[in-house]
């Protein structure tokens, strides 16, 4: 936006050197940032002996595609991915429903105690996960007896203050004239929400969906605490376990890291607009 609008001719050569210099710096940083991914990929294709050669080769001498199959067959990956997929769908759908309803109430309904409940929500948002971790662990394992289940990885995350705030903010921006036109009374709100508000909110709904689903995909500490068996454990725990078991088989470890990372990279490349905009707008750091 604030492009250097200097157009006097004698400034041109200086401007060009500046641009070239800028590209050199930006490209160098890009290489440094991308390099770990490159290193992961080429290690994943190497044989064990080539992977542990020093100094290492910058490009694999032979492409050992079978590393991926070996890594995949060496752990319960299909189970881990299925678990993560099921948890992600349940959490995302559930969180969307609860957040949409709550956000709608805050944005478009009048009710007693609105201010107080909103303050309660703000207070909840301030409490970090570190504070709730131990009580939640005790609650679900000792009292609810939900330890080592899929449900225990879903239920606590079926609502999110962040999603409520984000959606509320968007719902507030929908013009009142639309509500008036829809002649909203007590019974018509659900219909107005469904046929007017939601269709107008698709971008922000996509952002919430992606942020939630990616959050589930990355979740690690909670499943580490509350699950014991492969039958319910998610992908990231699978990755940590794989590392413990095959830690010295670097080529297999990198093959596993590749297929753990690949899904999010694909999603990101297709939907980065929604993710980056969402982050820029809200400043949320997972």
């Amino acid at each position: 936006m604030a492009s250097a609008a200097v157009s006097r001719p004698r400034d041109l050569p200086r401007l060009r050197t500046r641009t070239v210099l800028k590209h050199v710096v930006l490209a160098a940083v890009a290489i440094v940032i991308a390099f770990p991914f490159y290193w992961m990929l080429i290690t994943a294709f190497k044989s064990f002996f080539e992977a542990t050669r020093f100094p290492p080769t910058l490009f694999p001498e032979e492409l050992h595609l079978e590393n991926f199959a070996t890594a995949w067959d060496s752990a319960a990956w299909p189970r881990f991915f299925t678990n993560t997929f099921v948890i992600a769908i349940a959490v995302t759908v559930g969180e969307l429903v609860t957040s949409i309803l709550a956000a709608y109430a805050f944005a478009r309904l009048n009710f007693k105690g609105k201010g107080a409940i909103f303050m309660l929500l703000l207070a909840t948002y301030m409490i970090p996960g570190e504070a709730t971790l131990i009580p939640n662990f005790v609650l679900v394992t000792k009292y609810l007896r939900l330890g080592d289940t899929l449900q225990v990885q879903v239920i606590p995350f079926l609502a999110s203050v962040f999603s409520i705030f984000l959606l509320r903010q968007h719902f507030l921006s929908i013009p009142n004239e639309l509500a008036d036109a829809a002649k909203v009374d007590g019974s018509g709100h659900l219909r107005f929400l469904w046929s007017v508000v939601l269709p107008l909110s698709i971008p922000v709904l996509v952002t919430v969906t992606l942020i939630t689903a990616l959050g589930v995909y990355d979740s690690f500490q909670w499943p580490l605490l509350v699950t014991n068996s492969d039958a319910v454990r998610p992908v990231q725990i699978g990755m940590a376990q794989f590392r413990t078991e095959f830690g010295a088989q670097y080529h297999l470890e990198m093959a596993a890291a590749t297929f753990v990372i690949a899904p999010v990279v694909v999603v990101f490349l297709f939907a980065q607009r929604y993710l980056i905009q969402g982050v820029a707008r809200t400043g949320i750091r997972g």
Partner: protein
Amino acid sequence: MARPAIGAAHRRRILAENALAYAFLFPAMAILLVFHFLGGLAAVVMSLFKWDIVPGAFRGLDNYQNVLFGARSEEFWHSLSVTITYTLITVPLEIVVSLILAYLLFQKMRGRGIYRTLYYLPYITSVIAAAVIFNWLMNPNYGFFNTLLELVGIGPQKWLDEPRGLFELISGGALAGWPAGPSLALVGVSLFTIWHYIGFQVVIFLAGLGNISTEYYEAARLDGASERQIFTKITLPLLSPTTFFVATVATIGALKAFNQIYIMTNGGPLDTTRTLGYEIFHVFFQQGRIDVGATMAVLLTLLILLFTFFQFRIAERRVFYG
């Protein structure tokens, strides 16, 4: 007769709207109250009791006494100092690097989108898998980092297995104790952290730069200001709310650090990467001391809340009062 009838209908409508609102709020509020609000209060309660496997007697502030000054104080203060060191390494570097990158990226140019995508890629990658890659890069025997060191004539390092301080290593063992600096292992974890979060900060800074009116720049150029003057006299001051925001968010993130520590070093070597987040996990999960763990968690929470408070003062303009 007509007026009370209208009043009754009106009241009925208000009642219906109230009922609808509470019904809409109930599912979200129930989950949030149980797991994210009362949980926080419960941590405080737990810290006031003796509580290992099962809850025991009320102990008042004994747990706090124990953690701050008693038998647990050494590990608590040690892990707090590791956490603060880790924060002091990562946050300033993240800010400086991402600010420079964002500033360079902000001007219109070819390939801008590609750079931004590449810089952002580590941030969306899961911490666990990405940390596994860095462990491999920092492998003491076959790692790429040691290859780089060899190219510049420095011997191989143990990286994440190295408990000795960075300055101790650089000075060839001349510096010891406090001046030895953070262990190379903690530096390694910090490098990973900076790599992982830089794209996030760049995006926030880009948004901040976009909020500065171009009129300031135009006026400054008309007055013959140099690029450098423009950066230090206009961009930096006007960007300071964003910088402050990034600093608090990064600080809170650093204070919470657990996942990368768990994967990369497990708190070692010689406890030099044992952050408070890891210490809490160790105490309550591996040692089964719910009470001591909860006490440390409450103390960490107070520290985080301090920064959350600052963050909110800036963030409220971004999200909360749309």
